[in-house]
């Protein structure tokens, strides 16, 4: 079964998608390439256009311009029923009047699969999502996590060419969400299923993805691997949206040195930057330990977070920094003087 599915799994190409709703531009020239078997997360705040993008791929919305291709075939004009795409909806969208078994059998029945074959595949898929024995239950008799598994089973049972997940874990509590994330990842790998996962939760994106596409205001801001997105964001938005960050802007005054607005000079590692160029600077709060850039200042706010202290430090040179330090010893009281430093290699310039 797994081999069978891996063979059918497709690559997806989306090109120049435009979509407006009245005055609102939901998609403003979106292009994406997803290779066969890959799990790509689309990460963005609400209203960024990520759900519209998913609907266009699934066929529920027609784009104003641009095309969607699966394995090179243009499917932009194809209705959803003919696309062979499995989708898991935000609130699962299980048929409330059908049993678990009938829900999962639904896409197979729509494809006129033989009775015996339906029984076999439904059984196998329910086993795969660890719901064997629940087949005669109604959706309302299941917990949120179980409903989620049924939705997943229903979306993969017919060997779709593509799997789409639209913020599927939003309604689950944190523990269950983490379990489900790992489970989706395991299943997706095992089946080799090309998958697009939509979320506004950056942590979820980092856990799940091969690559992440960060979206804002109808545009893709950056598509890259999870480490790339975190370590080397392409712009302010990505740097700010993914993880905690200290973002500043400045001008290159000599190779390897950036003068921030306000006068502070920073040693950075980036090679051969043109003098006079305006750049963004990102310092992750957990990267302050030791280094040549030293900041002295006063603690304004200190929060104990179990693993770490989160400190807001007003520096003498006018900068305000968010710094994370391993939680050891006493939590520094507000007003405490302290200095932190960061290595040029830990400063990302963009």
């Amino acid at each position, binding site marked *: 079964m797994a081999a069978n599915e891996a063979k059918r799994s497709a690559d997806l190409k989306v090109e120049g998608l435009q979509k407006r709703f009245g005055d609102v531009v939901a998609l403003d020239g979106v292009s994406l390439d997803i290779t066969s078997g890959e799990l790509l997360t689309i990460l963005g705040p609400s209203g960024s256009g990520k759900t519209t993008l998913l609907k266009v791929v699934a066929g529920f919305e027609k784009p104003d311009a641009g095309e969607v291709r699966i394995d090179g075939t243009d499917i932009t004009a194809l209705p959803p029923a003919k696309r062979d795409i*499995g989708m898991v*909806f935000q609130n699962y969208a299980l048929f409330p009047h059908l049993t678990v078994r009938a829900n999962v059998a639904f896409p197979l029945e729509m494809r006129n699969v033989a009775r015996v074959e339906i029984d076999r595949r439904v059984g196998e898929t329910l086993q795969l999502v660890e719901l064997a024995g629940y087949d005669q239950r109604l959706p309302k008799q299941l917990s949120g996590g179980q409903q989620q598994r049924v939705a997943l089973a229903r979306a993969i049972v017919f060997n779709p060419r593509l799997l789409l997940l639209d913020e599927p874990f939003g309604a689950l509590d944190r523990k269950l969400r983490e379990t489900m994330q790992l489970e989706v990842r395991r299943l997706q790998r095992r089946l080799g299923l090309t998958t697009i996962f939509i979320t506004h939760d950056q942590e979820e994106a980092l856990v799940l993805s091969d690559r992440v596409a960060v979206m804002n205001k109808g545009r893709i801001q950056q598509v890259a691997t999870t480490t790339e997105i975190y370590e080397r964001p392409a712009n302010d938005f990505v740097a700010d949206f993914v993880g905690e960050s200290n973002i500043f802007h400045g001008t290159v005054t000599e190779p390897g040195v950036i003068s921030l607005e306000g006068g502070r000079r920073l040693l950075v590692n980036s090679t051969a930057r043109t003098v006079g160029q305006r750049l963004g600077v990102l310092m992750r709060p957990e990267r302050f330990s030791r280094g040549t850039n030293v900041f002295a200042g006063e603690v304004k706010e200190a929060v104990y977070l179990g693993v770490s202290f989160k400190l807001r430090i007003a520096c003498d040179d006018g900068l305000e920094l968010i710094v994370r330090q391993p939680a050891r010893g006493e939590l520094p009281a507000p007003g405490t003087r302290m200095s932190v430093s960061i290595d040029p290699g830990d400063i990302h310039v963009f």
Partner: protein
Amino acid sequence: MSSRLGGFLPAVPALLLLFFFFLFPVVRMLGYSVEGGSFEWYAKALGEGLYLQVFWNTFEIALFVTAICLLLGYPLGFLLATTTPFWATLGFIFVLLPLWTSVLVRTYAWMVLLGRNGVFNRLLVQSGLIADPLPLLNNFTGVLIGMVHVLLPYMVLPIYGAVRRVDPALISAAQGLGASNARIFRRVYLPLTLPGIFAGAVIVFVLSLGFYITPALLGGGRVIMVAVMIEQQVHQTLNWPFAAALSASLLVVTFAVYAAAQRFTRSATEA
């Protein structure tokens, strides 16, 4: 305890009203029907072929009206639930219009339309579609048309509500899973709107059983329903005990239909 009593108080006027003007008359009527402790009027109502025939006619008409209302009402309710707000509002005005019109005006309007020289027949004859006027008035057909017209909203409204309650995500899901429109209707909309269909059918059927003015006028005295017969007993033969026995029988039958439908609905929605 006092708070429970307090919650009960505002309902007292309505309960008093119901007691004096509804429950009390019904009990009085039941008393009439067994006057002198004899059940002879019930024996007559349910034992003589003529009266049984009227009961049967009433059922037949109610069934036909319900079936026609369902056939017309489902597509209409579905359309109203899925169209744009503008068309839905406009549609509702037309659907509800008969309820806002006086029974007599409505019924006489149908007589003008349906008569031998009525608007319909004149149009049909003049356009050459038919040679002779169709018998649309003073018969079964006329009664059906008039009753369906006024009872249609009772079918459309619950169906409209049921269709509106279907989560649009379910329809998207069904499409995405490969279902054609016909199959979406049969596998998703129909089962999920079944409670609305039952509710509408029960209301229409039960209301049909007690119809009086419409069959009396549009049936031209040739279509006798139970209510028409009761009126004749009260006004023409002045046989109050028999009228009461007929009324009580109709009441029991109506309750029985209602109870059976409730049970059926409950088992259907739980399955």
